[in-house]
């Protein structure tokens, strides 16, 4: 069970945004998509989510993505876009409930999923608050809870994907780490906390390379629309690769708690 891209290219107004990408991401793996601003990360995520036009081939669990309807796709993958704007006064509870279509689950089941999803992003205390009155980071956590609720609502499908576009961009340090840790647990197979039979894969755009290193299985490094590398953090987070793609000198060390590489930018 996987999502697979072959010869994936996107050209907008004669400019190549994505150039001939080939890779496979498996369910039960977290893949971090990293790269400079404008490297094509969000475009790639939109293609994989099935809402952007592309050349080449993308398959989700062996099905060509363009053959799946939006309603079918919604059962197999949930997506958090970079920003969500809501100008109408909804309560947090209502925002999360919107992830589930009318009548697909019983009232009690829906309430359980809403409570679980909010708990996963440490937002249980907001449940009755007005969404518009939350801070930026709190809104982002609630949106993530909504996306998780969409995933939960289709628990009977065994293999599904989460596509998250910068889920930590507005979060404080504690919640950046707790969110990625939660994703790590969610994607770990046979986790007793969740339905053990299911497999969830996640593709996450992050700018903090250390977060990517500590919590992700694979790193997908993009540069100017091309796939530079798709491998484990240990293989990719090396001085010369970072220097080439990001144009910055870093010191690479290994974290005392997990032996994962961590990067310290040089100041000069």
């Amino acid at each position, binding site marked *: 069970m996987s999502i697979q891209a072959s010869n994936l290219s996107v050209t907008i107004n004669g400019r190549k945004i994505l150039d001939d990408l080939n890779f496979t991401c498996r369910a039960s793996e977290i893949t971090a998509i990293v790269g400079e601003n404008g490297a094509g990360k969000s475009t790639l995520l939109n293609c994989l*989510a099935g*809402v952007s036009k592309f050349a080449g081939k993308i398959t989700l669990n062996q099905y060509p993505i363009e053959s799946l*309807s*939006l*309603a*079918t*796709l*919604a*059962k197999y993958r*949930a*997506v958090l*876009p970079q920003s*969500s*704007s*809501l*100008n*109408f*006064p*909804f309560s947090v509870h*209502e*925002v999360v409930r*919107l*992830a589930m*279509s*009318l009548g697909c689950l019983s009232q009690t089941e829906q309430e359980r999923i809403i409570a679980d999803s909010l708990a996963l992003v440490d937002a249980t205390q907001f449940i009755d608050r*007005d969404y*518009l009155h939350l801070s930026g980071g709190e809104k982002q956590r609630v949106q993530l809870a909504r996306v998780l609720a*969409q995933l939960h609502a289709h628990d009977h499908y065994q293999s599904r994907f989460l596509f998250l576009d910068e889920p930590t961009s507005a979060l404080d340090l504690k919640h950046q780490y707790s969110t990625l840790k939660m994703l790590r647990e969610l994607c770990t197979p046979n986790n007793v906390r969740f339905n053990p039979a299911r497999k969830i894969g996640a593709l996450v755009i992050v700018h903090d390379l250390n977060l990517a290193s500590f919590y992700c299985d694979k790193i997908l490094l993009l540069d100017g629309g091309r796939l530079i590398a798709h491998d484990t953090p240990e293989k990719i987070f090396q001085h010369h690769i970072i220097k080439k793609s990001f144009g910055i000198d870093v010191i690479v060390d290994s974290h005392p708690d997990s032996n994962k590489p961590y990067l310290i930018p040089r100041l000069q």
Partner: protein
Amino acid sequence: MKTASLTFWQLGQSHEHRRKLEFAVLSFCLLTLLWLGVSIGASNVNFLLPLESLYSRLFGTLEPSITQSVVLNIRLPRVIMALLVGAALAVSGASLQGVCRNPLADPGLLGISAGAAVGAVMMILFASHIPFLHVAGPYAVSVAAFAGAAVATFSVYSLAQVNGDIQIPTFLLAGVAVNALAGAMIGGLSFIADDQALRLITFWMMGSLASATWTSVAISAPTLAIAMFAIYRKRHALNLILLGEANARFTGIDVEKVKTQLLWLNALAVGVAVAFSGIIGFIGLVVPHILRMSSDTNYRYLIVNSALLGAALLALADLGSRMLIAPAELPIGILTSLIGAPFFIGLLMQQKRRMGFSL
């Protein structure tokens, strides 16, 4: 805004309780206004009239008086028409605000009502020259109004779309342009119209329910009911569109398809409403706003509540238009604009102060 004005509804302890209470209050208002609308009239005021008429109708024991036949054949269809048109305009406004993701959308402001009036007026002027259409009468006017409303709806919508996104300034300007064009067309048509047609056109521009009959109710009731029910069925999609079109797509909603369907349904509802009552402004704007201030933005409840409150408000406005300068009648469109316009100005000022909403 929501929390500040909740006090009354907070009497209900839980959300569910509050919603039931709200539904009960709105239904009660609607029934009361139905009762008042039938009881009060220029010829006399008698609060037992509805019962007497109903009794004589059902059992035929009493000889129906002239007043009772006034009630059954003039007041009752008129009040029912007010309820239907009010509900349709409010539901239309609520759904357009969702489609456009903007709380300022309204069938009147966007030129949809004016487009429908152009269609209706053209049909009135030219139908007499075409023998078949003359026979079709009220049906033909409805169809023409629907066509006019559809042309206006899709012109404004396609004008406002830039790269698949609704641009709010363009959108409001497109509404202004279509309104101006429709106004000019109606002006031109009234220039060539004879005296009788001119009176009818004036009626269309200012709105009136005076011509409501059982025939017009029979034509409009099923059409408006179907349109409103179809809009109600899109409540989940409307909620998701408020969250952003990308989010709606990711959650499985074919946004373009839903929007097109909703725009057609709006054209139908507004077209038929305008065909039988002329241009009645601000109901579509004001009703969802009052509801958002006092209770829910969620379309699960907003559509039904809008229909109830819109119906009650228009029945109240119709009562006002009949009674304020009795025995003459104030055109109902003038009355709703007199109340609605200051409300709209207040809304704009509030928006300027608030962060949440963005123009």
